[in-house]
């Protein structure tokens, strides 16, 4: 990164000459497109969204101000509370699967091989669009002709309606998305493990520490910060579950998979209750804000022992 052609013998310390007083105008030029985009599609809609949440609006007629009516309605709306409960259930399931399997795979990769091909293959499902993986798994999990049921019957077990039974639907959706995301989680955790100094492992090997013990006593404590980061990323990601549900179960059977994103979507675009949907969305913002705040506190509490 050294360019001898440009470097001059003059020693520069601190600020660049001629730019001491700040670069307001230049900065404005650099920021203009982003500022326009941010104002038009983030700030303006945020304000409008907050306003809509105080109105009754079906997208066609003019919004009618109803004060806090929507919020009063959602406080007593069993479907909203159910959607939060179902979402939480999904998040726990899918994040749990992703992180346990991801940790295991990352540790295996880390201790066995540096093969780039294996890592690329593991990450392929993450690249498949959600809609495609939803369709694909709908076919694999099909109650009659699906491959998984074919496997079950050839093992002498009963056919399962993975996406049609109220008990199995949500775990199935969680598993489908874990299939898509685990490779990505694995790579993040693997990157964290690469940061652990190899000498520690050599010392452990010299002491005759077994692999399992090494994982729980050395790897796991030392990658805690990255584990926390992965947890936050996958939590935020999972909260936004929409695609898979929209393609496979459409919220059913009996609301078992009507997650909050899908519920808001339905209220806005199939029932045309835009005001109510906005109130739901704003409440979700507040709930997630609170959760993020708590997470940040936890994150700060988990400094690396390596640092």
């Amino acid at each position: 990164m050294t360019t001898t052609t440009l470097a001059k013998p003059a020693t520069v310390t601190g600020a660049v000459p001629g730019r001491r007083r700040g670069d307001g105008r230049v900065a404005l030029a650099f920021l203009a497109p982003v500022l326009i985009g941010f104002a038009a599609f983030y700030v303006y809609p945020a304000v409008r969204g907050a306003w809509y949440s105080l109105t009754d609006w079906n997208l066609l007629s003019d919004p009618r101000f109803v004060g806090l009516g929507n919020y009063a309605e959602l406080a007593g709306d069993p479907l909203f509370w159910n959607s939060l409960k179902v979402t939480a259930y999904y998040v726990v399931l899918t994040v749990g699967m992703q992180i346990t399997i991801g940790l295991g795979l990352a540790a295996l990769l880390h201790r066995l091989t540096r093969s780039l091909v294996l890592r690329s293959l593991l990450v392929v499902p993450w690249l498949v669009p959600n809609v495609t993986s939803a369709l694909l798994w709908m076919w694999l999990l099909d109650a009659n002709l699906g491959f998984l049921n074919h496997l079950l019957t050839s093992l002498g077990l009963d056919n399962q309606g993975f996406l049609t039974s109220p008990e199995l639907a949500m775990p199935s959706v969680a598993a489908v998305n874990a299939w898509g995301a685990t490779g990505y989680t694995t790579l993040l955790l693997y990157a964290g493990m690469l940061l652990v100094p190899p000498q520690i492992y050599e010392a452990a090997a010299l002491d005759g520490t077994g692999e399992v013990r090494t994982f729980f006593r050395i790897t796991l404590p030392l990658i805690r910060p990255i584990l926390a980061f992965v947890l936050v990323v996958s939590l935020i990601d999972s909260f936004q579950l929409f695609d898979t549900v929209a393609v496979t179960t459409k919220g059913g059977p009996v609301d078992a998979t009507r997650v909050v994103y899908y519920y808001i979507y339905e209220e806005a675009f199939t029932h045309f209750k835009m005001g109510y949907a906005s109130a739901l969305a704003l409440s979700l913002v507040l709930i997630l804000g609170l959760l993020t705040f708590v997470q940040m506190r936890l994150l700060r509490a988990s400094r690396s022992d390596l640092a």
Partner: protein
Amino acid sequence: MNAAVSVSEPMSVGRRRLRRLPAWICLIVAIVISLFPLYWMLRTAITPGPELPSDNAGLLPRHPTLINFERVLGLVSRDEARAAGGSGANLSFFLYLRNSVLYTGLITCLQTIFCAMAGYAFARLRFRGRDALFNVFVAALMVPPIFTLLPNFALVKQLGWLNTYQGLVAPSLLMTPFAVFFLRQFFLGIPRDVEQAAFIDGAGPWTVFWRVVLPMTKGPLFTLALTTAVWTWNDYLWPLLVAPGEDTRVLTAALGVFLKQSPNTSPDWTGLMAGSALSVVPVLLLVVFFGRRLVDSIQFSGMKG
């Protein structure tokens, strides 16, 4: 150190390998689970539709065919498509593929450039309110997209931009808070020496950015662009809402519509899998051509975490 290891650990290489066998088996099982569904998608796509109920277990179909690909691409007549298991609905995946490429390409290119400019300004230029503004962007990162999606839909509708390209790309063409955040962090991490040398030579920030910084950071910018491209390619809800019309329909939305048109009791699985396979082809090309960069970019965010 090697001597010490060999003294205290008399296990032969052969036995060490044997002990690692279960670990290798776990890893291989994981790879099979990752890839088998995609193989099954392809296997179903080359099975003749009418034969699927009786031919859905073997690793290869009895009579492999390309008819399903031909009919989702709209290359065969409606009667032929119906005979092969189609619902008779019009399908033109060439068009959807083009729309997806356009949607992804436009957003990826422009967003990356604009966000790089902003990230550079936040990292290097000094102006009033810089940190406050940046904190607003970070706060926006935390807001779930559905909150702005509803009013954005209303806005696009009021502008009369439903089922147009401008409506499709507008909200993410100029920026996402994430890209600005990511690139600012990145620019903060690169050494200032080269830029300063250019400044001493009398170049302004604009020249330095385009002539020195951008060429120097082509790799990481490409990495971010790759991630943006993957996300945009996968996007479903927004294109479904604002551009469901045939002419602006992207691949993901097309798959959703295709499923809806297909009869509930016996979905057109062979056609659906052919369409699905088409939506994965670009992804596989990415892995083949940019596998290392892709893996590196994911791991890079892991190291930064």
